[in-house]
């Protein structure tokens, strides 16, 4: 069966995909180009002498490996914690009737509107006092960074999961209850697998949130450079007179690849899972 206009739609889709992906292609390409081709007034969309010079420079002079591990550690812990906490909270907010529910929802929205950049001021003082009591969660510590990220990714994670939990038909819960399942059992054995696509989507966003951040790292990791994260290391290549574009592109590539891998791994669940879970 041939549908009219589908060829046109497919050509459009491929063109759009190429345009969207182009900046990424350019990033990887520039990272692989030798210095003379990067800093050239006649840039070519290919290279005949690919080299890893830019990568070596980035990894040796800036200690990217260490920062990389720090970033991964922080992001993974934030994702795991925020998934558990937000799943419980989202379930309470969609499945249970209690006083103050709407108020809580509104507060979750409000929390997302407060500009993070301005909040770093009071957060700094808070982390300083926390560090006096529990050093592992204070300034200059990855634990402190995890807590800060957790606080900032939770409102959105809960808000997002809410929609997925709400999409699971209430009849399912009634059926489970009729079959004698306890609330706990329903929660973990029925609801949790059903909102898996939502959990995936939420974890992706929490991950990006933590991975992207450079402001918190810059503000809260002041003197302990061994606990620094990636984005700051990248910004070190920006110089007022002459940017080291090759190194910047190599650093950007190193920073983008893990997220890309994570995305590709989960994308099937992210995209098609939702439809299946809701229908099934």
């Amino acid at each position, binding site marked *: 069966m041939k549908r009219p206009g589908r060829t046109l739609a497919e050509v459009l*889709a*491929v063109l759009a*995909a190429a345009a*969207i*992906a182009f900046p990424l292609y350019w990033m990887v390409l520039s990272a692989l180009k030798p210095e003379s081709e990067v800093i050239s007034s006649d840039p070519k969309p290919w290279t005949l002498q690919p080299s890893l010079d830019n990568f070596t420079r980035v990894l040796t002079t800036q200690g990217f490996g260490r920062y990389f591990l720090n970033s991964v550690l922080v992001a993974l812990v934030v994702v795991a914690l925020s998934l558990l906490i937000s799943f419980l909270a989202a379930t309470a907010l969609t499945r249970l009737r209690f006083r103050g529910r709407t108020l809580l929802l509104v507060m979750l929205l409000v929390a997302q509107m407060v500009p993070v950049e*301005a909040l770093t001021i009071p957060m700094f003082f808070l982390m300083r006092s926390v560090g006096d009591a529990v050093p592992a969660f204070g300034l200059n510590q990855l634990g402190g960074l995890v807590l800060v990220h*957790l*606080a900032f990714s939770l409102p959105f994670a809960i808000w997002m999961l809410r929609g997925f939990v709400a999409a699971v038909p209430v009849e399912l819960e009634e059926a489970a209850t009729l079959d004698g399942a306890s609330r706990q059992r329903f929660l973990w054995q029925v609801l949790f697998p059903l909102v898996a696509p939502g959990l995936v989507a939420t974890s992706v966003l929490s991950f990006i949130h933590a991975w992207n951040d450079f*402001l918190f790292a810059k503000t809260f990791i002041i003197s302990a450079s061994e606990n620094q994260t990636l984005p700051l290391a990248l910004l070190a290549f920006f110089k007022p007179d002459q940017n080291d574009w090759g190194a910047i592109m190599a650093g950007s590539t190193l920073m983008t690849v893990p997220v890309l891998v994570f995305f590709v791994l989960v994308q099937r669940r992210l995209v*098609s899972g939702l439809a299946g879970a809701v229908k099934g």
Partner: protein
Amino acid sequence: MIGISRDGRAALAYLAPAALVLIGLLGYPIYQLVLISFYDYGQEQVSGGAPLNWLGLGNYAKLLSDSQFWTVLAQTVGFAACCVLGTLLVGAALAVLATRVRAVPRALLFLAALGAWATPTVAGSTVWLFLFDANFGLVNEVLGLQGFSWTYDRWVAFGLVAAQVVWCSFPFVMVTLYAGIKAIPGEVVEAAALDGASVPRTVRSVILPLLRPLLVVVTIQSVIWDFKVFTQIYVMTGGGGVAGGNLVLNVYAYQQAFAASEYGLGSAIGVVMTVLLLGFTAIYLRALRRSGEAL
């Protein structure tokens, strides 16, 4: 019924971890932010070398009488509006396009969109900056504009940053709407077709109402994000453009606090931004409720 109190107790248990984190690490700092905005809070007060000086609404009065604040506010609103519109249009168009094509072009489209989405903000900003670099950028080479700076003129720079913002934020809209369209049971659309509804009619009366909750989420989310764009402006225009021409409120607040050590004033700008976003959301939600949609 007994259900109410049991629900209440379960809700308390489920919400406790979230509440603990949010009250301690978000609620308390927000309270502090408002508090600081009432003080003359500079470098000396931070280090404890000078006593705190209560200004009341002094910082706000200073802000409202500052003509630069109004310029920045207008720029922020205009910039955010363009970004939101662009993001929603591109995201929705590509989501619909994705439902119309076979698996391979769709996979390519999603792969590209996920790539743009996955790119860390700092990395995305630097790549766009490099593509549009005055001397070494591909865009100038292709257009024959050697030496033309895309970040010098205020509006050109805003355009460039907006394009980057749309590039990295449309995938969220696209994926969410695509999933939403896919979740609409085929029988519903078939039933509409059997009842003689045309395609536009089906879209308007069946698909859009079903997508509405998702549209609400992506719109509010885009407004919140785009009103607070920080990294792109900061990295791409070098901290707010030539002579501060590309400042948006968020960057302005940051500059006031951390560059000028006016923490009180910076906090006041933060509070103003929050109130503005709150106002927008309140109006939006009220409009929704009037049309019969619950939160």
